[in-house]
């Protein structure tokens, strides 16, 4: 029966293609929209959940979180490193991790931090960088998975970072480790010890290559990531440091802000919720319209098949077998279309991946959500339903020719 169903499907190839295209466009778009939105949301909240609080220079809360957690946007400014020492000794704080973003390698950003930053991260191979010493021939650096793949790096390889395009530093970095893939922006980052960042700029300045303000980097950080001992401790730190004035080693006073990244992200996501629902609504409209097209085309196909069905009935093929045949045919069309819809959604993910990166999420082609299956199964059922109804009506009719 399967062989016959396939042959019978192939002789109506134009109608089949029309149904397939309708299903692929509607179902594929719906699945793509849902998957993208979910991955971005999951990526954003998962990344933000690692940290209890972030302390940085006064300014935009969102910019501070986006820069520290998702490595996007430019840093709000800098604050003195002494604040890290102060916070490390705070009884409410388990860990205070410095974060500085400076320089790049082949377009990938470099972050200066400490080993504590890697507590939640796993190495694919190699080791975490060690603390640099003055006079080192090269500074150690750990690379994210995408950097490792894209630049074809190897452990022990020397790389030269740059402060801006065409402005390469003379002191090399030596790759000591590669991080496991996380499907987040972390995969696109190179990590080195904070002091390496300071030293490389110091050395460059000595060689007369640096033209920017040295004070902006030396002994400064862009933000401090806080891992509090408990949620109430985190809240207490945020309340204390948000709006606080801090006097640095340079006798300057720095105005601080402290935020809970999850709260900031939730607020950003809530603002984006209405946009997300509009996208979902549009997808639903496309889906409903295409379901109508699919139903009409399927019913027309069935009407077109009436002489063929009648012919089969006349030569003695039972209603049951004819019903099975047409259900099988439509199931094949439905299943192939759903498979292509899934493929379409994954190809779509490749295209929207670049946009999603700017929001701090690396879209994974392998991420599949249960609702995607529900959408696909739903569309499959709808694609087969008109045939099921038509064949049911046919089977109710006892007579053939009268």
């Amino acid at each position, binding site marked *: 029966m399967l062989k*016959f169903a396939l042959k019978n499907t192939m*002789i109506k190839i134009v109608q089949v293609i029309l149904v397939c295209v309708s299903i692929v466009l509607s179902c594929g778009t719906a699945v793509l929209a849902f998957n993208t939105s979910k991955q971005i949301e999951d990526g954003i909240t998962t990344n933000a959940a690692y940290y209890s609080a972030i302390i940085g220079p006064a300014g935009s809360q969102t910019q501070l979180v986006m820069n520290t957690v998702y490595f996007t946007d430019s840093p709000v400014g800098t604050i003195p490193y002494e604040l890290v020492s102060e916070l490390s000794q705070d009884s409410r704080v388990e860990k205070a991790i410095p974060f500085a973003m400076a320089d790049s390698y082949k377009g990938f950003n470099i972050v200066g931090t400490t080993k504590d930053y890697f507590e939640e991260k796993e190495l694919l191979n190699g080791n975490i960088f060690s603390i640099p010493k003055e006079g080192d021939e090269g500074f150690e650096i750990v690379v994210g998975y995408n950097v490792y793949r894209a630049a074809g790096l190897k452990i022990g390889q020397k790389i030269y970072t740059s402060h801006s395009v065409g402005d390469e530093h003379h002191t090399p970095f030596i790759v000591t480790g590669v991080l496991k893939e996380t499907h987040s922006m972390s995969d696109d980052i190179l990590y080195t010890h904070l002091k390496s960042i300071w030293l490389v700029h110091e050395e460059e300045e000595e060689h007369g290559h640096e033209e920017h303000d040295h004070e902006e980097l030396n002994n400064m950080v862009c933000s401090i990531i806080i891992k509090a001992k408990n949620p109430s401790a985190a809240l207490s730190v945020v309340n204390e440091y948000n709006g606080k004035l801090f006097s640095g080693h340079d006798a300057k006073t720095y105005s601080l802000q402290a935020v809970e990244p999850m709260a900031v992200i939730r607020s950003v996501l809530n603002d984006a919720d209405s946009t997300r629902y509009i996208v979902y609504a549009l997808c639903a409209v496309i889906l409903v319209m295409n379901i109508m097209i699919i139903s009409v085309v399927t019913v027309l196909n069935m009407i077109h098949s009436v002489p063929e069905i009648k012919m*089969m*009935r006349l*030569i*003695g*093929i*039972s209603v049951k077998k004819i019903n099975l*045949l047409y259900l099988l045919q439509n199931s094949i069309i439905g299943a192939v279309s759903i498979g292509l819809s899934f493929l379409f959604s994954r190809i779509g993910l490749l295209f929207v991946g670049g946009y999603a990166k700017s929001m701090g999420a690396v879209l994974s082609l392998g991420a599949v959500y249960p609702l995607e299956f529900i959408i696909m199964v739903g569309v499959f059922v709808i694609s087969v339903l008109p045939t099921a109804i038509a064949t049911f009506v046919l089977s109710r009719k006892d007579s053939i020719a009268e």
Partner: protein
Amino acid sequence: MITVKNVVKKYKNEKEIAYRDYTFLDGKSYIILGASGCGKSTLLNMICGILSPNKGQIIIDGIEITSLSQKQKDKIRIQKIGYVYQDFKLIKNMSVMDNINILRLENIDVSSSEELLKKLGIDDKKNKKVANLSGGESQRVAIVRALAKKPDIILCDEPTGNLNYEIGRKVMEELLECSKGKILIVVSHDERLVDLFDEVIHMEDFMVKEGEQHA
């Protein structure tokens, strides 16, 4: 054996047709002659269970098919009866073999089809689309499909209606050759074929005339 007993058929807004009682015997060939629209095809359609008479009984090998459900009639038709339709009832966009293999949907053994195609001289056309065949070739395909399942009864509705006399006669001879030992009932308006059959039935004699009782 097929027995037609007190059978009356009436279509909407048309005069009723009453058939005389008759028994078609195993192993014999019959030709029913008559003008178009006189009820020849109706009789074949009632025998194979496509149509139901308004009155009377049609009994095939002791089973009164007129009292059966459509499903049961379908079963008898697919198992016992091979029907060659005037318009062939073939799926034009499918190949000759696919049109025969369609019977396999009902688990019918069609292994004899290759031999029949050879016998009827169209074995070289088996992979061709029916749409690309001539009328005579299509007719032969319809005959092969009817015979491939080795039916006890073969019904043919104007099997040579689309063919010229010479080809039609040749096809009929081949059909008779392949139908030996079975009941073959052919309806036709071509009287030149009567010499090929065991029994010749004229519809005017087979129908009960107005005011006459069934007999």
